């Protein structure tokens, strides 16, 4: 699935879906069961959540131009699309991982204009004119980025799922200069969870890379 459009493409579709017509039924025993939380109270009585006025039918989109790993892209995206979903579902860049989709695990860490961000919390439409660097953009041709090589040397990963986020975050950490001591690295790398528990070696890999600079 590609949403990539030439610059001359037609303007993005507006929210032209059918207007929300069904009247919310507020029967006592209706609970709205949503992907992110329904509403339930104790004792078997339920409260209906308020309906979202703009919910049904609408999916407004926007066009945004950004540079991803050095390549300029102009895409039309659903306004609800996160940078992470843009990368993974639309641009085929699945190196950035979805671990929690809530900014708590760091698996989606990318650099936006050189700064570490959680791509899952960043709406794609906000990124007009930005430069995004993902794990796929770190190696220089066939040559790995020094931190990528350090992760292999130090065995700083096991399952590998948090690894792209750890490495991108580590690149940010080194650039920021937060590598004065293992303690400092640990603090500044604590936004990236590694459930396999490779922290000791992640710190060594960041140290190894910072030492080369």
């Amino acid at each position: 699935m590609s949403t990539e459009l030439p610059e001359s493409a037609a303007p993005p579709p507006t929210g032209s879906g059918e207007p929300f017509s069904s009247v919310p039924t507020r029967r006592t025993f209706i609970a709205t069961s949503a992907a992110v939380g329904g509403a339930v109270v104790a004792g078997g009585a339920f409260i209906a959540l308020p309906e979202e006025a703009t919910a049904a039918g609408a999916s407004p989109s926007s066009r945004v131009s950004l540079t991803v790993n050095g390549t300029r892209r102009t895409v039309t995206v659903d306004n609800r699309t996160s940078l992470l979903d843009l990368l993974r579902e639309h641009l085929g860049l699945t190196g950035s991982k979805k671990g929690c989709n809530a900014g708590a695990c760091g698996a989606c860490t990318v650099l936006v204009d050189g700064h570490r961000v959680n791509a899952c919390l960043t709406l794609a439409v906000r990124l007009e004119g930005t430069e995004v660097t993902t794990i796929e953009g770190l190696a220089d041709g066939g040559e790995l980025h020094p931190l990528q090589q350090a992760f292999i040397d130090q065995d700083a990963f096991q399952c590998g799922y948090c690894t792209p986020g750890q490495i991108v975050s580590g690149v940010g950490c080194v650039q920021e200069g937060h590598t004065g001591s293992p303690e400092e690295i640990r603090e500044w790398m604590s936004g990236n969870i590694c459930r396999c528990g490779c922290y000791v070696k992640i710190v060594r890999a960041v140290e190894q890379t910072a030492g080369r600079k």
Partner: protein
Amino acid sequence: MSPQPQAAVGAPLSRVDGRLKVTGQALYAAEHDADGAVHAVIVDAAIGRGRITGVDTADAEKHRGVLRVIHHGNAPTLPYRDNSGSNNPPGRRLRVFQDDRVLFHGQPVAVVVATTLEAAQHGASLVKVGYDAQEPSTDLAEAEPGKPTDYARGDAEAGLRSSAVRLDVTYQLARNHHNPMEPHATIARWDGNRLTVWDKTQWVMGTHDELAAVFDLPADAVRVINPFVGGGFGSGLRCWPHTTVAALAARETGRPVKLVLSRRQMYFGTGFRPSYEYRLRLGSDRRGRLSAAIHDIDAETSSYETFTEAVMGAGQMLYSMPHVSQAYRTVPLDVNTPIWMRGPGFASASFVIESAMDELAHELGIDPIELRRRNEPSEDESSNLPFSTRRLRECCTVGAREFGWHRRSPKPRSTRDGDWLIGLGMAAGVYDPGRYPGDARARLDADGTAVVEAATSDMGPGTYTSQTQVAADALGLNMRTVTFRLGDSLYPRTSPHGGSSTMASVGTAVVDACNQVRQQAIRLAVEDRESPLYGVDTDEVVVRSGRLHVQGNPARGETYRSLLARNNRSHLEANGSYTGPPSPARHSYHAYNATFAEVAVDATLGLVRVRRMLGVYDAGRIISPKLADSQAIGGIVGGIGTALLEHTVTDHRDGRIVNANLADYLVPVNADVPEVRAIYLDGEDNDGNALGVKGLGEVVQVGVAAAIGNAVFNATGRRVRQLPITAEALL
């Protein structure tokens, strides 16, 4: 057959799949390209028990991009053939969208399929489900347990009564969730009546068999693929309901469907380490010689399946004593079914037993290591079998030396560093590693490279690398000329990738297949008049770096390539197998450890910080030392989580998990883990596997929580008999 030189096994090699993982090219379940895949999002039950009175899908179906909403009111009847394999526990497994009953909070009640992820997510929020709700029972302490599983030797009650020293302690262990970094995910595609699934699983064959059973398909109509697993720790040992949901949605819509559980849904869409209430009574003499132990163990399970794990093993054999009784009772609750989590059973039991041993040591004024030495058994007293190897004393001795145990003050609350109270603790660990039958296939090609295949997994320990190591040595090839493939149900069948079983089981099958291929080549050479090896006894030929030669005479030989080319052979191929451990068992085969912890506890705030940890392991032969080191350190980190952080909290009023996310369910982060070190004792254990391994993925987490708890006691004088040990408990 002459023994092959071991060049790769035992060498501290980097991962063969390292480059793929550090460049983001390794593809996990949700990342495979199924052309034209649409997205599915599950709507989960908002009540803890009851019935669905109605599902209003009108708004969802009007939402742009939504293709279909499937629920019990419109789903087809699924065959759900019996399948006691695939790690389905006894009971009646959850059948998705087959009736109106809600068995636990979060049960799938509908699925929304849409052309985009955003539309599916939004569509799911628009489905209105009506319920007739009942109050669920989710509190282990309040519910009725089922019939116990018992064990007894001697007369534990009498033994306890006549003991000079008695301890009676009850421990509460919180529910833990695996929380692998990769969420569970499935892509399902139908081609006619054939189903292909990319699924996050630790067992492609288990998922294969379950899907064939659920949809009543012939075995060859289902294929399950999963080359990379983003962590598991046990959560992928079973085929969960969402995998069926994805396959059903794909069949109903006629499109490939991608379904990824949200992190929140992972807390009820997959299993968990069950919570426990564990009462232990110990009796000993004044010198610390144990005489009796009575274990009363209650653990949660679901209302529809009876999940059990090996929580009784350690209490029967870790220490010598004449009298033991155990009653293990599962408590059915309105929750989803638990599943094994790293160090299953043993990790939970060891926290209780090893904490109680520390309590006893303190009571008696005996050093905790000395107390364990005094109760070292000479055989496995649960089976009366000799130990294959048991080097627990050596683990303790090496650990004490390397950790500086002599610096520990036996008097609690006697060491300070400013505001911090400092404590040292240790615990022993044991695990019963799995050894299961399985197959593998090896093929040596005319170009001198080899491909070895087995339907196993690599959830992170490094199966790709370590199996390549054993295959390379058995074939006499260099690592870079051997490719090991896994994660496809078309490969030879293996058992689950779990229970520390993979190297002993799959590794043995791999060695068998590779040995056969090597022997084929050797026979071909010694019977070939053109070969420099013509007429040589097959037992005299070894292979090194792809070249066959007479042992002790490297000059006389030739390469695989020249041999196969001259004989017009495109390849040599063999199937290998592992038939499982000796039956009946000849030995008690267990892995052991001694784990040491130093903690600092803020004297006024109760905050616990781990300062350093050490694990010393008796895990048999280590195939891949660099990777084994990472695995041990990771097990300790997992144990830090269990000890100090991890706790799934349920609101018992409605069965909702209130901290179903990674911000409120705390796991260790980098700042929680300072110095951690692992030492594997040199050695091997040849009870029933030629590789001499014992498995190490589980034992490395067993005992960690107790070591930390014991260090907290040493620091503070406070014995916290619940996990996790939080600041609140220490205030």
